[in-house]
């Protein structure tokens, strides 16, 4: 659990983060969105004390984050820096191994972990391990940056726009992988992004920041349904709202009785994908199948359209 209480950061006269309080429940993902310069990175960096707050307190699992030496704190928190920040003089493998080496893991364990992470991020350890960062593409560098943050299996992970340089296909894959890792290890993640789509997909809760202030901190559905201000409304994208809302739900939750013709859609697909498929194929209903392949029922255009409406 991360408790942020009345955190303020001032540089001279300008207040960059203004009295922000929020609680991130253990084993959940909080996504911070906001315009450029709204203080997202600064807020994130106060958690691992790369920036010292002017006022306020941050507790990790009940302990003030100033209660141990800053370097020990940082070793226990994974940090994927904005714009990757890889060490140019170290190979990919050495970069990923940074924190395990600092923690004094033995060689075999480090190698196993590095190989595991590189394989996960689709970088062949044999081919890419000995390369230097400048020999990678921007997207590959970013994946190495994320792998480095994950290396020591931290309980808390801070990620500053980790997927910005990835193409849509790899980005979706990287998001899924991160969700899987988060589920498996119960990691608490704070993720900064500019991408509302990503925020809705990844976030258990979304924090919206504007000019240093926390404007709204709520579940994605609530942010979509009841934006706290015009700013949040604009950020969410008024015309996108119904689709974002649908993307939060699974087809299995929208199943109706009955049957339909054609190829069945899996129950764990998003309702948004189902609607897209219906509209594209010009049909009014699709069959739905469960994980075991058994038919569950069907989804209809009418049913989905009702779900896309503003919740009461």
């Amino acid at each position: 659990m991360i408790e942020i209480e009345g955190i303020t950061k001032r540089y001279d006269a300008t207040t960059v983060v203004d009295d922000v309080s929020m609680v991130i429940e253990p084993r959940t993902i909080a996504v911070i969105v906001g315009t450029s310069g709204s203080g997202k990175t600064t807020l994130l960096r106060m958690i691992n004390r790369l920036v010292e707050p002017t006022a306020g307190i941050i507790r990790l699992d009940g302990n003030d984050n100033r209660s141990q030496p800053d370097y020990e704190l940082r070793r226990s928190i994974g940090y994927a820096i904005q714009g990757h920040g890889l060490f140019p003089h170290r190979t990919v493998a050495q970069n990923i191994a940074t924190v395990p080496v600092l923690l004094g893991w033995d060689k075999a364990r480090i190698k196993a972990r590095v190989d595991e992470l590189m394989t996960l991020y689709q970088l062949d350890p044999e081919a890419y391990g000995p390369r230097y960062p400048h020999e990678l593409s921007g997207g590959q560098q970013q994946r190495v940056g994320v792998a480095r943050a994950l290396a020591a299996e931290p309980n808390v992970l801070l990620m500053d726009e980790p997927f910005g340089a990835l193409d849509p296909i790899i980005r979706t894959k990287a998001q899924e992988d991160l969700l899987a890792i988060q589920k498996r290890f119960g990691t608490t993640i704070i993720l900064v992004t500019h991408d509302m789509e990503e925020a809705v997909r990844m976030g258990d809760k979304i924090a919206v920041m504007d000019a240093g202030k926390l404007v709204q901190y709520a579940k994605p559905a609530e942010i979509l349904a009841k934006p706290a201000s015009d700013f949040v409304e604009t950020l969410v994208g008024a015309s996108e709202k119904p689709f974002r809302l649908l993307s939060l739900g699974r087809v299995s939750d929208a199943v109706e009785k009955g049957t339909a013709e054609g190829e069945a859609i899996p129950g764990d697909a998003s309702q948004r994908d189902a609607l897209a498929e219906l509209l594209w194929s010009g049909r009014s209903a699709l069959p739905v199948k469960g994980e075991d392949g058994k038919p569950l029922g069907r989804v209809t255009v009418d049913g989905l359209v009702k779900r896309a409406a503003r919740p009461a």
Partner: protein
Amino acid sequence: MRIRFDKLGVVIAAIAAYAAFLAPFATFRANRIVPGEARSILEALPATTGPLLLAIVVAGALIALLKTPLVLRLAASVVALAALATLIGVAGSFLTPAGNTFARISPASGFWLLIFAFTLLLADVLTRLNLSPWARVGVLVVAALAIGLLLISGQWNSLSILKEYANRADSFWAEGSKHVTLALGSLVAAVVVGLPLGILCHRVEKLRAGALNVLNIIQTIPSIALFGLLIAPLGWVAAHVPGAAALGIRGIGTAPAFVALFLYSLLPVVANTVVGLAGVPRAANDAARGMGMTDRQRLFGVEFPLAFPVILTGIRIVLVQNIGLATIAALIGGGGFGVFVFQGVGQTAMDLVLLGAVPTVALAFAAAIILDAVIEMTATKRRVETA
């Protein structure tokens, strides 16, 4: 077919033509201090070899002048340099009257210009070949071996500079090792003091401007003046600090020379350390802190390796500078190759001046090539990419 000229080749050919036909190849003197008489290539060499050398020079100049393949240019420069190096020795024995031990034969302006022209050609070829650092060091070693062989073979023994050497063989090596010790020792001292000082200047902004200014001022004090300034304090130390005199600390001699070289070396080392550390990408520093490195781990694990090529450039500057400056040490009894230079100046014996100057230049040149190669090797591996 149109004839195309090589731009640098035009210059090389012009120099070579002037040097071969208009400038003297060797100088003959009845003894070591009287003014010399000029001898052209044809006069200085036996009837067969003179025209041969002229032919080699003309052919080499033509190859340089026209746009020709690199291999041919390489061969032309090497052959010309080798011919010049051997034949100047032949000229020495040819011009020396039999049994005369007073006569002095030395290379004259034409010879030096020819060497310069073909070295230029060789350097141009080597640059265009884009040799790896190891290969450049290899070329240096081969050149050094060739010169060493010529020296050992006695081919040059009839030349005046080697006659001066023969008279002073023992002191030559003694002064040589003093020279190298002075240059390297003061460099090591400057690195030992300058690196931490540079790191401190990098970390403490207030200190930076002040320290660099002081070092800049020291750099502008002429060396003779600096020696003068050091005599009094070092003399005082020798007289008042127990054991100092036993260590060889005195107002004149090696101690002030060492201190002066050390002071001159500090600025490049400190300044390059500061610049190198400042050039470390912000993101790398940031990541280092974010990953949980302590200040020490960050300094040695990230900042230092990334700043290393720049720091090494400072060390290169200092080493080359010190090898040259150490010559001045002789003025206050500090020893080194300068001893021959100043003795030679005093006796108006040009050959003796060269006996001190030539090895100094050769040392500086070799040091520059070796350190450049090292810098390139460290920089390619650690290429800094600013993300």
